[in-house]
């Protein structure tokens, strides 16, 4: 700003005069103001928005919490129903175990089929050498169960048979059953 410096110095006396002039106090005329808009509605509006926001947030949060509890409850219900479904499908599978089906079939008197005849649906021709299945005999009946595991003697001891004492035998006539059941209860 080197160029303005000399000018400032030359104008200084005039500026000082003006300042002196200004320094005389005068009554400032009252500025004309526009009629102010009433403040109450604005404040009310802002308060309502603020309050609405806060209450809305609170309600939103609460409903989220509610939903979260509900989600937890539904999760639990899902787990329960899944477990139930699993239990039922396991039961179904146990019922469809071939060994069980075979056992039921044999008990119902069913036997394994003999050779079938085959009909060609196009020509109506029947081929094959069908024979009636022979009646059930031990030789053609399927064993349904597998022989159980053979346990070592230590794990599968012979049953211990305790014979009644001689004096008990004399009681046989007058109610053996009562005496027997009493003894077994004591054991």
């Amino acid at each position: 700003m080197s160029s303005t410096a000399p000018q400032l110095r030359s104008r200084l006396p005039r500026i000082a005069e003006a300042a002196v002039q200004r320094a005389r106090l005068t009554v400032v005329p009252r500025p004309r103001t526009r009629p102010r808009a009433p403040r109450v509605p604005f404040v009310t509006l802002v308060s309502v928005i603020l309050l609405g926001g806060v209450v809305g947030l609170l309600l939103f949060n609460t409903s989220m919490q509610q939903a979260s509890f509900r989600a937890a409850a539904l999760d639990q219900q899902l787990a329960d129903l899944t477990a139930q479904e699993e239990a039922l499908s396991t039961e179904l599978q146990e019922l469809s175990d071939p060994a069980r089906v075979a056992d039921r079939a044999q008990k119902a008197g069913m036997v394994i089929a003999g050779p079938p005849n085959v009909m060609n649906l196009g020509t109506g021709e029947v081929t094959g050498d069908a024979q009636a299945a022979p009646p059930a005999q031990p030789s053609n009946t399927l064993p349904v169960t597998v022989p159980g595991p053979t346990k070592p003697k230590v794990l599968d001891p012979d049953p211990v048979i305790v014979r009644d004492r001689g004096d008990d035998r004399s009681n046989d006539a007058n109610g053996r059953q009562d005496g027997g059941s009493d003894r077994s209860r004591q054991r």
Partner: protein
Amino acid sequence: MTRPARDPLRASPQFRLQVGFILIAMVLSVFAARLVQLQGVDPDEYAAMAAAEGSVDVILPATRGEILDRNGKALAKSIDGRMIVADPTLTADDAPELASFLSQRLDIDYFEVLERLRVEGSRFQYVARQVPARLATQVVADAEAEGFVGLFMQRDPVRVYPFNDVAANLVGFLGTPKRNGSARALAGLEDSFNDYLSGIDGEARYEVGAGAQIPLGDSAITPAVDGSDLALTLDADLQFYTQRVLQQTVEGSRAESGIAVIMDSRTGEILALADYPSYDASTPQDWPKSRYKSSALTDVYEPGSTEKVLTLSAVIDAGLGKPRQQYVVPGVLNRQDRPIHDHWAHGIEHLTLAGILAKSSNIGTVLAADEFEPGQLRSYLTAFGLGRQTHVGLNGETKGLLPKGEAWTDQVDDRIAFGQSLSVNAVQMIAAVNAIANDGVRIDPSLVKGRATLDDGTEVGTDEAGTRRVISTEAARQTALMMERVLDPVDGVAPLASVPGYRIAGKTGTAQRVVESCACYDGSHTASFVGFGPTDDPRFTAYVVVHDSRTGGGGAVAGPAFAKLMSYALRRYGVAPTETRPSKLPVEW
């Protein structure tokens, strides 16, 4: 107005400002240092502490895949289970009442539970493990309702085998899960496909309040990757039938053990593979450990005369013989180290090649095989798949024993021609014979439908099954016709293996048996029968092996079992009889 004189004790405003700023800077420096400490030096520890406050970590368990049969029936499946655990510091007071409650509801031993509920100095005692989730939840809820405290539950998946012993030899089983809930595979496919079935556990971490997840709270979820289902080629019903027929056969002939396999001739899919004796996969602890395997794959034996089928089909394929070719078969054939006999005493017989097979003449087979060039029989047998693992997907498979190099002497060559001095496993053998049923093309046998990855990374299954031409179509057809003569009521040795209404080709085998205890022939026999049907359009190949049968050889013991299995399979899959006449190839001349 005069300005008040400056208080001499008060420093200049600038000085006071400087002091103030220095103080603020010092405080901020402390904050900054703390920030660096928190974020730079050990951020993880603090982050973990912050996260642990009010947040929970949950393992999202991966569901183990099911093992299914070809129709989608589950042979092994996982259900959600719980372990019920007691805290003895809480349960000791009313232990007797709680023990009686638990023993009634869970079917467990009263005294054992009582003891566990009273253990001193422990806060974790198993009450019951692998209880189905529904039952466990109910029992614990009821216990709480009755005022008992100190019971809690943890995840403990249950593996169930709904069909018990059906295919147990193949499926295997899982032991009690490890402490972290992961599976402990102990045998069978459960073991060899453990990784494929297991899946990968996921993890979830979220903030909780009052037992429910806090919405908008921090949460991170790594979803679990469930294990894949393993679909097998087995047919559960056919497998059951096969196991029981084999059981009947083994028990009926007072034999030691047996194997039965049924294979789809066209695809190489194993429909049934039975071992007897076997075990029950749902109660494995009750059975001897030696049964936790499939001896059809793990055990070798000498195939005996059933192997003649392979030798003679190779003779025909190599152009060294024809079904009607005539041979003079002496009663005894003196070879290098010892004489070769037939299973029946005879003088000089005039047999055709078909007759040699139908009557199962060792001497005739050796004479026919004499035409081979050195090494030719071995390369045929290798092409049939002997001496190599079948890779169906079970661990511990044997590759059999096919001598090579120096070990393949002339004497060995003679004996191998009729099925001794070499060892096979049952699946190898059925796959080899199946090549004849399948027009001379050998298909790799498969147990897995589609494709699945073994724990060692190899993929197996029907999609991976390769094919290889071993003999010509014509040689396969002629061999099949010769095999039909084996079941002829007059000329053959195994009329009992025939299936009424169907044309069946087959071959008996009665081999001397090598026993492990002395590694020698102990005089016992392995009776077997292999065959396929219908001869002119084969659908199934079946193989029955009975070790140490006491009531007869292949035709008498294994033949009837073969007939039952073949008849059932043909009926079950609705195969119509072919209505053509069986071969009448001459057996003598």
